[in-house]
């Protein structure tokens, strides 16, 4: 606020009143804080009653509380209050719309405009009409809610007998007899304890080079204080010597065992509680003797989703899961359960294959061989449709995804009627969908109904998780809806 010559008694009086209110509120605030911390200090003094004495501890505790009260109050009263801040507070409290603060600020400015005179006159008139009242709210410090705790503790401590101080030594393991023994031993020629540095920090663990590697006597030598042998001296262990040869022998045997790969369990997989097993358990719990129509579709969907996730890691049941998901979408729970059963069977077969030992890491049969073995007659030969050269194109190669297998239900499902395409006989039955537009010359080999459910789900996930503009959501859903209508 700039210096001004013009007296503004109404505005100054208003600001003085507010400043005074602010000071007293501050005094209250800081006095309460002072009382709290004084009480905390008082509790500490009362805890030391045994040292200070009961009378003086009570007097000191009371003095701390009073000092906190007075100190906080004085601190609150002594702190400066900016007049403009007080004016703003008054403007808000009395609904003066920043008149007082603006008038006080502009009254001393050199660039004041004629309107400032009008403003000052207006502000003075309004200030003179105000009824004085308390406008500064009381602000309790955070410590107030904890104040009962030290107060109660102080009261209890005043009334209770003095609390004994804790002893300086917490542990004293060796008994008096052992100490005497230790003293005798230190006088002996064998260990010559008197030559050691006497003042060692008992809490500090000695460094490796500082340790005293001494032959452990089987009981002939007297144990020193802190020596572990002293603890076991009355047990059978006390007479034993460390046998490093037997330890090395056992290690050699284990190393030999490691070389026999076939006998090793696959440490990468936990057969007792893996994800596949969890899926089996969940499916068992889900069925639990219920009929298909009694099973919760939501739980069934969750289970299928979990199986689908497992399938992505390398399983051939994804098409069954997709079929199940699709059946669930159409409300056909029987078919969804059948699909789940099929998927579970495949999952079980894969697990059993792994358990047989052939699937172990470093085993005799690779995954590729196993795939060929399942292929039956064409094992060892190149598959004309799904050759390696076709890489990772959709529906090609040896990808574990379901895109290479056609569903057997294609002709039985009424929803397949709408799909334009033709079945393709071969070693694996396929279904070629006819595309229109630019992609029409490259007929797809995807099992349409096997993947559409997954794509729809992927679409829904993408709409939820990814940043697809909201305006496009409806358009995308419409597109998938149109696919259903076909």
């Amino acid at each position, binding site marked *: 606020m700039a210096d001004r010559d013009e007296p503004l008694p109404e505005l100054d009086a208003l600001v003085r009143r507010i400043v005074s209110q602010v000071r007293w509120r*501050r005094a209250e605030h800081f006095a309460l804080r002072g009382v709290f911390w004084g009480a905390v200090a008082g509790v500490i003094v009362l805890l030391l009653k045994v040292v200070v004495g009961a009378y003086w501890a009570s007097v000191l505790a009371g003095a701390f509380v009073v000092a906190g009260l007075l100190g906080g109050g004085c601190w609150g009263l002594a702190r400066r209050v900016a007049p403009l801040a007080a004016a*703003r507070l008054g403007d808000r409290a009395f609904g003066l719309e920043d008149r007082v603060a603006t008038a006080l600020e502009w009254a001393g400015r050199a660039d004041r405009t004629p309107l400032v005179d009008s403003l000052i006159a207006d502000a003075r008139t309004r200030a003179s009409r105000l009824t004085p009242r308390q406008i500064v709210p009381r602000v309790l410090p955070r410590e107030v809610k904890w104040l009962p705790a030290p107060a109660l503790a102080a009261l209890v401590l005043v009334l209770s007998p003095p609390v004994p101080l804790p002893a300086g030594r917490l542990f004293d393991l060796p008994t008096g007899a052992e100490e005497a023994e230790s003293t005798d031993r230190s006088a002996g020629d064998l260990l010559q304890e008197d030559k050691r540095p006497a003042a060692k920090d008992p809490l500090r663990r000695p460094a490796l080079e500082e340790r005293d590697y001494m032959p452990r006597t089987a009981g002939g030598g007297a144990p020193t204080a802190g020596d572990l042998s002293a603890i076991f001296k009355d047990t059978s262990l006390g007479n034993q010597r460390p046998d490093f040869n037997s330890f090395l022998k056992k290690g050699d045997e284990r190393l030999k065992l490691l070389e026999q790969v076939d006998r090793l369990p696959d440490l990468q997989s936990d057969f007792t509680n893996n994800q596949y097993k969890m899926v089996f358990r969940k499916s068992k719990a889900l069925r639990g003797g219920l009929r298909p129509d009694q099973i919760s579709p939501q739980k069934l969907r969750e289970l299928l989703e979990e199986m689908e996730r497992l399938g992505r890691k390398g399983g051939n049941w994804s098409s069954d899961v997709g079929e199940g998901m699709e059946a669930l979408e159409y409300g056909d729970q029987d078919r969804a359960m059948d699909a789940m059963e099929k998927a579970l069977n495949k999952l079980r077969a894969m697990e059993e294959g792994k358990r047989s030992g052939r699937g172990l890491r470093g085993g005799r049969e690779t995954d590729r061989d196993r795939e060929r073995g399942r292929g039956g007659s064409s094992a060892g030969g190149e598959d004309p449709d799904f050759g390696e050269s076709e890489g990772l194109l959709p529906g090609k190669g040896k990808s574990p995804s379901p895109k290479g297998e056609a569903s057997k239900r294609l002709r039985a499902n009424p929803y397949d009627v709408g799909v334009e395409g033709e079945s393709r006989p071969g070693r694996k039955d396929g279904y070629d969908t006819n595309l229109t537009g630019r992609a029409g010359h490259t007929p797809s080999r995807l099992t349409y109904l096997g993947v559409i459910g997954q794509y729809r789900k992927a679409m829904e996930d993408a709409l939820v998780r990814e940043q697809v*503009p909201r305006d496009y959501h409806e358009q995308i859903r419409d597109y998938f809806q149109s696919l259903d209508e076909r």
Partner: protein
Amino acid sequence: MTQEARVQEFVAGFGALRSEVEKIIVGQREIIDHVLIGMFAGGHLLLEGVPGLGKTLLIKTLAEGLELSFSRIQFTPDLMPADIIGTNIIVEDASGRKHFEFQHGPIFAHILLADEINRATPKTQSALLEGMQEGYVTVGGASRPLPVPFFVLATQNPIEMEGTYPLPEAQLDRFMFKLRVRYPAIDELNAIIDRTTQIRQVAVQRVMSGPGVIGYRELIREVPIASHVRDFASAVVMATHPEWEHAPDITRRFVRYGASPRGAQALVLGAKVRALCQGRFNVSVEDLKALAAPALRHRVILNFEGEAEAVDTDTLIGDIVAGVEQHATQGKELFLR
């Protein structure tokens, strides 16, 4: 005449003008006030609303209430800059000599209604730029001043976006306020039906002249503003910038570009008019809060996330203002500082 008397005259004139407009326009009190505030502050306004809400009628009525020339341009895709500014044409005088003479375009009026401004091409839209910012237009190498006061009121339709050319940010920034004309409430709609379907002529009286408007513009600039109120305006504008160190989270998340300094100018100048039209001699924080949305909503550019989440700029500005106010006053903790 004393300053108090001038202020009282302004308050009366403002109220009279509002009353004249309200003879024709039902409801829309806030829009009418903001249009008048923008006019007295010397800014240009952009009115956005669906067809049939009386945007054009409001502006025509305002022009009738003022002793000022008025012209209207219906913006279309084939409108050319010369159609707005004017052009040199060959004129033959009495002696048979031919010479070029400047034919003034419709921009040479005190109040210019640019109807559906987003339907014209950017080239034509930019023809307004120089006139709006500088107060004159240049044709054939000669600068021609526009009449004073010069006040552009543009309208645009937010729903029919096909075949339109949305105004670029640089041109939007030249509008002091962007006003959203809302749909009338049912009682207002009843009043509109009564007023417009009966045989009753309502005549709008001229209550203010051009020089009067200019005189008030000078008075408005004299209104003092306290430093803490000015700081509040600056903080609100800065809080629309995501790169500002104290920017709120909502700004950092949804805003790509914040308001320009023109936004702060529009906010403070509009607040001065609002204070004066209420008979107050100073700007208050409430004035700034009331005008934050019209002054800033077209100056805040949302980022992709903001567009995708369909964030409403009015809500965004409201949150920013609330955050700045809370930060500025600190509520009950003020006196403990």
